[in-house]
């Protein structure tokens, strides 16, 4: 029988232990506070709480795991299987039990550091959720029955507090999860609103009845109606011109009935009206979106008045340009053609004078006539050149395959280079698709220039080519007198020659024609040269 003093001590301890339970809904704090008092007052070596994994997670394993240990350095095993002695004993007896070191099963209970063959354990079930395991190293025998019974109610209360803590924790996690979702939703809503209101297009949404539900800042700018003015209004009567309203209403009804809408999900150009009643062109795309309570339609609209104006202006300019170009071409053709007739007459007259009056005008007069005929020939060549040049822009010749090897052979035959002149090819040339006659004209012109202006005793021209991604690149290289860099641009300009026309017979049109032909073949021409060091003309022609 306990003494009155001892009973008071026990009650005091139970009182203190009871009040140490449930002081916090935090699992750790709740356990820590209880364990601190329990270990100190009961002079225990350690205490641990084990909880069924299913209590913490409904889909957890069929095991038990440590929830709290004090002191923590004792913790060794943190998991216990269903077939463990402790679990089996608790299942069988459903009551607390104590085992001291003298019991042969004692080692089966050891899951902690520093427990040797001494002391005693006591294990309490924690309702259906787990158990409390206590150890006192200084005890020689088991915990007394009355002692175990004393703590039973306190431990039950502790079990309830653990359940409450776990529920609280789960509730907090769930609440936090919902808060996070709500926060993300709010963030997204803000983000969408920002995008909506900063969009460069007018964005308008309407419901199945055609009532405006959203109206962004750009819509305000484009149509002149503020969101307050527009939201709640019927779209058709607000911005759709009278002549399109019926089609709009019909289209909506048709879509809601059949799910089909020919103008949906594509860009169309149509007209709309603004607050002042002005009708103006817009680009419009409408996307139907389905929600639980039906469809809504999102429309993206862009005022294309300025673009339309610009397009109109461009069209007019192009037409004008075409007209002027045609006039110019015709002018060059007509002028050239009309000039040729008097030239022919002058030429014929000069021949007649030479034939009929050669003796009368004497040798000096005949020389003057030869000069006159020369100038007439040059003038003729010039007019032919202008005609040819105007033809290049005017007449498109069909593209055809051209074997450049054969062409070059023909060109060289016709040019008939002098015996001291060599024209060589580095490698076999390709067959290309081009305006055959024009490209032959290019090669002929460049090679004949190289021969004509060569000042060396042993002159040569070297022809080469390489293949690029989209073009062929050709080169015509000679060992002639070379060209100063300052003339590189000038030589491609019309009527420009570097030598006196009397020294070399030249119209100054050849390279201009070459450049134009190459540009019509989407290529470029350039020159690399130094005076007295030869010249290379290189050019590209697009692969067709």
């Amino acid at each position, binding site marked *: 029988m306990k003494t009155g003093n001892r009973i008071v001590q026990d009650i*005091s*301890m139970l009182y203190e232990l009871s009040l140490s339970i449930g002081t916090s809904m935090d699992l750790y704090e709740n356990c820590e506070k209880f364990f*601190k008092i329990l*270990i*100190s007052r*009961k002079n225990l070596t350690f205490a641990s709480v084990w909880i069924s994994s299913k209590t913490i997670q409904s889909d957890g394993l069929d095991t038990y795991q440590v929830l709290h240990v004090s*002191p923590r350095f*004792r913790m060794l095993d943190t998991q216990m299987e269903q077939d463990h002695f402790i679990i089996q004993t608790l299942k069988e007896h459903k009551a607390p039990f104590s085992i001291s070191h003298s019991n042969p099963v004692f080692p089966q209970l050891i899951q902690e550091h*520093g427990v040797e063959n001494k002391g005693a354990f006591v294990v309490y079930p924690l309702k259906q959720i787990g158990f409390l395991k206590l150890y006192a190293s200084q005890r020689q025998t088991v915990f007394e029955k009355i002692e175990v019974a004393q703590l039973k109610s306190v431990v039950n209360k502790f079990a309830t507090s653990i359940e409450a803590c776990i529920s609280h924790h789960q509730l907090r996690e769930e609440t936090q999860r919902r808060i996070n979702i709500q926060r993300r939703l709010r963030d997204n809503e803000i983000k969408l609103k920002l995008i909506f209101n900063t969009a460069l297009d007018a964005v308008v949404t309407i419901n199945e009845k055609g009532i405006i539900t959203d109206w962004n800042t750009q819509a305000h700018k484009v149509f002149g109606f503020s969101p307050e003015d527009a939201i709640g209004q019927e779209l058709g009567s607000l911005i759709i011109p009278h002549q399109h309203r019926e089609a709009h209403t019909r289209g909506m009804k048709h879509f809601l009935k059949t799910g089909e809408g020919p103008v949906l999900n594509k860009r169309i150009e149509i007209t709309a009206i603004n607050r002042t009643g002005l009708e103006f062109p817009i680009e419009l795309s409408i996307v139907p979106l389905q929600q639980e309570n039906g469809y809504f339609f999102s429309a993206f609209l862009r005022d294309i008045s300025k673009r339309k104006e610009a397009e109109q202006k461009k069209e007019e300019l192009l037409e004008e340009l075409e007209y002027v170009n045609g006039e110019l071409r015709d002018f060059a053709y007509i002028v050239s053609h009309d000039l040729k007739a008097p030239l022919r007459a002058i030429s014929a007259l000069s021949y007649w004078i030479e034939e009929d009056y050669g003796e009368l005008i004497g040798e000096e007069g005949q020389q003057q006539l030869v000069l006159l005929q020369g100038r007439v020939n040059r003038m003729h060549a010039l007019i032919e050149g202008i005609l040819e040049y105007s033809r290049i822009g005017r007449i498109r010749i069909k593209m055809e395959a051209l074997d450049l090897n054969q062409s070059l052979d023909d060109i060289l035959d016709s040019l008939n280079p002098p015996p001291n002149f060599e024209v060589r090819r580095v490698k076999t040339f390709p067959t290309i698709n081009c305006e055959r006659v024009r490209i032959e004209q290019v090669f002929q012109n460049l090679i004949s220039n190289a021969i004509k202006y060569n000042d060396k005793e042993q002159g040569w021209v070297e022809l080469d080519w390489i293949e690029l991604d989209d073009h062929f690149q050709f080169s015509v290289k000679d060992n002639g007198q070379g060209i100063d860099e300052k003339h590189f641009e000038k030589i491609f300009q019309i009527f420009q020659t570097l030598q006196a026309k009397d020294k070399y017979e030249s119209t100054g049109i050849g390279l201009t024609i070459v450049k134009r032909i190459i540009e019509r073949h989407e290529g470029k021409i350039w020159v690399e040269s130094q005076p007295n060091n030869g010249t290379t003309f290189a050019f590209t022609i697009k692969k067709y």
Partner: protein
Amino acid sequence: MFIHQATTDKIVNQLQQAAFSENELCVLMVGEKSEVDYSSVSNFAKANNIQLLGGMFPAVIYDTNKYEDGAVIQKLPKYGDIVLVKNLSTEPNNQHELIKTLPTNKHLMALTFVDGLASNIAGYLEWIYGVFGSEVNYLGGGAGSLSLQQQPCIFTQDGFFEDAAIFCLIDAEVSLGVKHGWKQLLGPLVVTKAEKNIIYELNWQNAFEIYKEAVEEDSGLQFEDGNFFSIAKGFPFGMFKEGQEDIVRDPIAVDENGALICVGEVPENSVVYILKGQNESLINSAKEAMRTSLAQTENSPSKNLIIDCISRVLFLEDEFKKELEALDEELKLSVDNQPLIGILSLGEISSYGEGLLELFNKTTVVGLIDN
């Protein structure tokens, strides 16, 4: 080593002569009335690579006397480095890296000094115990001034600190004896409102009113302005611990609201008793502590470290010397020529064998060191 009427120069001279190796710890305990410039001592230790674990205490013990102006030094083999925990009241669980792996072939001792007037010593002790558990034996005490005004009282080679604790593992086995001899007078009383080391309410009433009524009735004395501690030193609180003496909590002051300020934590809802001491039982308990400690020693201990509570001095007054003599006599029965060395502390730190590490008050802790 004992330094009578310790000064900075005398301590520095002793440290020089002692020639500490890098594996040795200099445990320097100084009486609060010594004329010591602790910063200079720290600087000297730092400059000479001496690992210094030091505290300023109300007094030190040497042989059978206490010295308020003396100093004692114990040279002990250290294991690992000194750990200094600052801001003890607010951050007792500082993120300090403690040694994680302890040797398996020997038992270590953990020596710690704390600022005895810091308010979260329990948290600090829980932290250490949580790391090392019962793998080591603990010994230590609370430093500070008997004026009970908090001030710097912990020092290492890195400085002089207030509201701090220091800790070092010692490569030696220690046998411990812990006793106080105080007996239950009144109770139980329920601590219905408390925070750390301050009791606001007892039995749902003002703490001081309840305490005053009980103590005045038993002692026949009257609490008046300024005499609280002179009466309270004889009537500490005891907290129940099964199979052991009650853990003593010393009320050292009362504030203007009637809250009792104790050395060490008193948990809210704990049940306490008012204890009463008698000279004979206290002196006998000291002797018992020495006996308990000696009984655990396998070899003759080479050193001793006595942690005795300053409030025992205040209670026993002139008879305190008898307590030291009792300790000395008991030690001499087993060990020759070994003077007592120790401190009179504000709170004593030890563990009962494998039990929880506790802060005691009004208790004698005997540590016999075998290295």
